[in-house]
């Protein structure tokens, strides 16, 4: 893998991210905004499945999802820029590896949701209870995204990255 890291490190993007002093803080700011969008929206949807805000039907809440996905795209982009800026800071960092792993498992969890109870959940009207499988998926989702934030926040503490 070493040639890959070296290639990233010597790329023009990498030089830009670490060379221009305002880019890193600007990306951190966007990363923060993306986090609030992604986890805020996903959290609201998950909480509805778990039985909070039961007065709301599920379908219109689910329509919020594109805003969460927009947050995810912002964070994937800015996250990739951090990585490009200094790949050596991240590549062997256990917090970084765990963060990526948690994101991947969260993705699998989303797949299970859409292949499984999604249709039933989408039909939920005011006051309706989600099926148990959806509740398990929602709880798993909250755990995984909390984990993503945990590992992200641990980057400077466990692996000395920032």
């Amino acid at each position, binding site marked *: 893998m070493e040639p890959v890291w070296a290639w990233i490190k010597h790329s023009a993007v990498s030089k830009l991210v670490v060379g221009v002093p305002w880019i890193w803080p600007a990306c951190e700011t966007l990363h923060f905004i993306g986090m609030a969008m992604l986890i805020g929206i996903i*959290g*609201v949807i998950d909480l509805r499945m778990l039985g909070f805000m039961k007065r709301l039907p599920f379908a219109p809440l689910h329509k919020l999802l594109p805003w969460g996905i927009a947050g995810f795209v912002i964070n994937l982009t800015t996250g990739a820029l951090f990585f490009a800026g200094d790949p050596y800071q991240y590549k062997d960092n256990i917090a970084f590896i765990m963060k990526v792993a948690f994101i991947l498992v969260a993705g699998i969890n989303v797949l299970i949701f859409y292949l499984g109870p999604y249709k039933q959940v989408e039909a939920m009207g005011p006051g309706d209870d989600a099926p148990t499988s959806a509740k398990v998926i929602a709880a798993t989702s909250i755990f995984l995204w909390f984990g993503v934030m945990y590992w992200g926040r641990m980057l400077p503490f466990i692996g000395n990255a920032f």
Partner: protein
Amino acid sequence: MIWEWLHPWVTSLGSTSFGLWLGQSVERIAWLFVFHILGITLLLGTVLVSNLRIFGLALKREPLPELARDLDPIALVGLCLTLLSGALIFTGGAENYFTGWWFRTKMILLASALLFHFVVFRTVIRSERIKLHPVLAKLSGGAALLLWFSVGIAGRAIAFF
């Protein structure tokens, strides 16, 4: 200035055995950071959802006052989590935080955001008569979103500058 007046209190807060104990362990502070951002996402998430509704981008068939009441407990839990963890993080490094420019900026923004949130934003979005004032809802929604995100961004800046 208010900062000079507060300084002796902050110094003694930081040097209490509890403050010293908090600041001793990096791990303890790191966990508090995690709960701090968890609370932030809950609070900002609900303010964001309210704004999407106010600007007609989502949940159009849900009346705003009812939606606002549904989201309120989540926002309050998020806010309490953020304030409590923030207060503990501060206690663990009081002197350092207190003298920083970005920290002071954040506190001024936080005070403005809290005041605006509870006096204007929350009142407007929960009001049944809001249909009469869609512009008022948009203005207060936009301002609340801007203020809260500014607090977050100033917080991020504490670690950078």
